[in-house]
């Protein structure tokens, strides 16, 4: 109990003193997860909407597959990306293994299905109401996609946040493809795992607190922006 108390006070001083190691790890974590979410959204939002709007043979199979991919185990994704990027793998020449880029790739693979599946769900429900109205106004399915995404923006911010949550909380994949290398690929979750196993609870707890605070701040910020835009439309 006493140990926990001292760990907590050390954690606070690390955070308040903007410890360089801590800042480095936090900023890399943010960079990797935000870029991954951005890429996953660029693919997943229009992709999910297209899946909702277009009817094509095999559509159901695609929908079910993407739904299943939502539950991909991170270590499996990590392993697959590792094999793809390793020296002998198909993308070995790019020399990306154990870099932040490799971590971003793994996270994109993990969260794109989440963004796409949830977007498809939201847009499909909306499309039932919108389809005839938009066609009547002269919008075909292609033109309807940006309209639907824009009109669903409140629900979709939650989707993107879910993707960010998954990315920032994930350990297994980034550990495997990043390697948890100090000053290079060490992010909050991998650092917490490492420090805990080393018994350095202070840094682990400090990182844990920062991780939760960041998540809280980002969610709050997104909802504030969302509320402001709700008042306007």
């Amino acid at each position: 109990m006493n140990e926990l108390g001292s760990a907590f006070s050390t954690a606070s001083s690390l955070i308040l003193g903007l410890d360089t190691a801590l800042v480095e790890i936090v900023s890399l974590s943010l960079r990797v997860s935000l870029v991954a979410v951005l890429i996953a959204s660029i693919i997943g939002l229009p992709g999910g909407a297209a899946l909702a709007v277009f009817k094509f043979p095999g559509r159901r199979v695609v929908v079910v597959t993407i739904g299943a991919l939502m539950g991909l185990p991170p270590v499996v994704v990590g392993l697959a990306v590792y094999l793809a990027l390793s020296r002998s793998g198909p993308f070995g020449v790019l020399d990306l293994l154990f870099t932040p880029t490799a971590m971003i790739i793994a996270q994109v693979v993990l969260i794109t299905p989440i963004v796409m599946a949830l977007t498809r769900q939201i847009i499909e429900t909306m499309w039932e109401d919108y389809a005839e109205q938009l066609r009547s106004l002269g919008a075909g399915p292609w033109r309807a996609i940006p309209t639907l995404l824009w009109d669903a923006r409140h629900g979709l911010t939650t989707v993107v946040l879910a993707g960010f949550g998954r990315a920032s909380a994930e350990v297994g994949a980034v550990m495997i493809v990043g390697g948890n290398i100090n000053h290079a690929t060490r992010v909050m979750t991998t650092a917490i795992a490492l420090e805990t196993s080393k018994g350095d609870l202070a840094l682990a707890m400090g990182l844990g607190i920062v991780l939760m605070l960041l998540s809280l701040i980002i969610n709050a910020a997104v909802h504030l922006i969302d509320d402001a835009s709700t008042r306007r439309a």
Partner: protein
Amino acid sequence: MSDQSNPVLPLVLRDVTYEAGKRDLVKSLNIQFEPGKRSIIIGPNGAGKSLLLRLCHGLITPTSGTVEWQSDARHAQAMVFQRPVMLRRSVAANVDYGLALRGIAKGERRELIDEALERTGLRRRADVPARSLSVGEQQRLAVARAWSMRPQVLFLDEPTASMDPAATHDFETVLDAIHQAGTKIIMTTHDLSQARRLADEILFLFRGRLLEHAPAEDFFTEPRNDLAQAFLRGELLWWRHGDGPKGPVSTGPKPD
């Protein structure tokens, strides 16, 4: 934007049937819609009124038969739905959306938006979110959105179904202006007194069949069809479930 010099009317339906599952929802419709006259479609629930509008507007394709316009009518028609979808943006932006889709330049769009909102009494609400409008105002916005495109034909599907009398009155005033401006109005309604106020001609639908198509005056003084007579007397028709019209029924004037 429709080209008024290229008239799309009359709109001719030939033997139009629409089936879903194994049921005929509308059956062998032969109708000719002439320009100018306000055509009001009446009939009990499930008669196929909305379906008829959606077939005419091209939202659904008939199982058999044809819907024929005199020239390319894609941009010459617009529709106001019973529950129109308001896009999550401002009132003015809702009108702008349809105009932009028709490739109208921005400067010209602004004028058309202003005019449409002015005529529907929504000008002062141009910048508020469309979804914050009342039901009656939303329906007027739907008309503004449709009318801004200057259609030659405007379809309306029970537009006043959820309005109070005052809102209905305002709405009918707007409709009258649209009619005066030369747009053909084809509208469904449940409301017989509204049909009396607005109609130049009546189409009476029952169970997917057109039972009477007559000038409004004739229809309301002496409908030829006995089911139409019953409908006008306020006798509900749907209780005859499974017992539809039998034998030959008078079907009013057919398209020539």
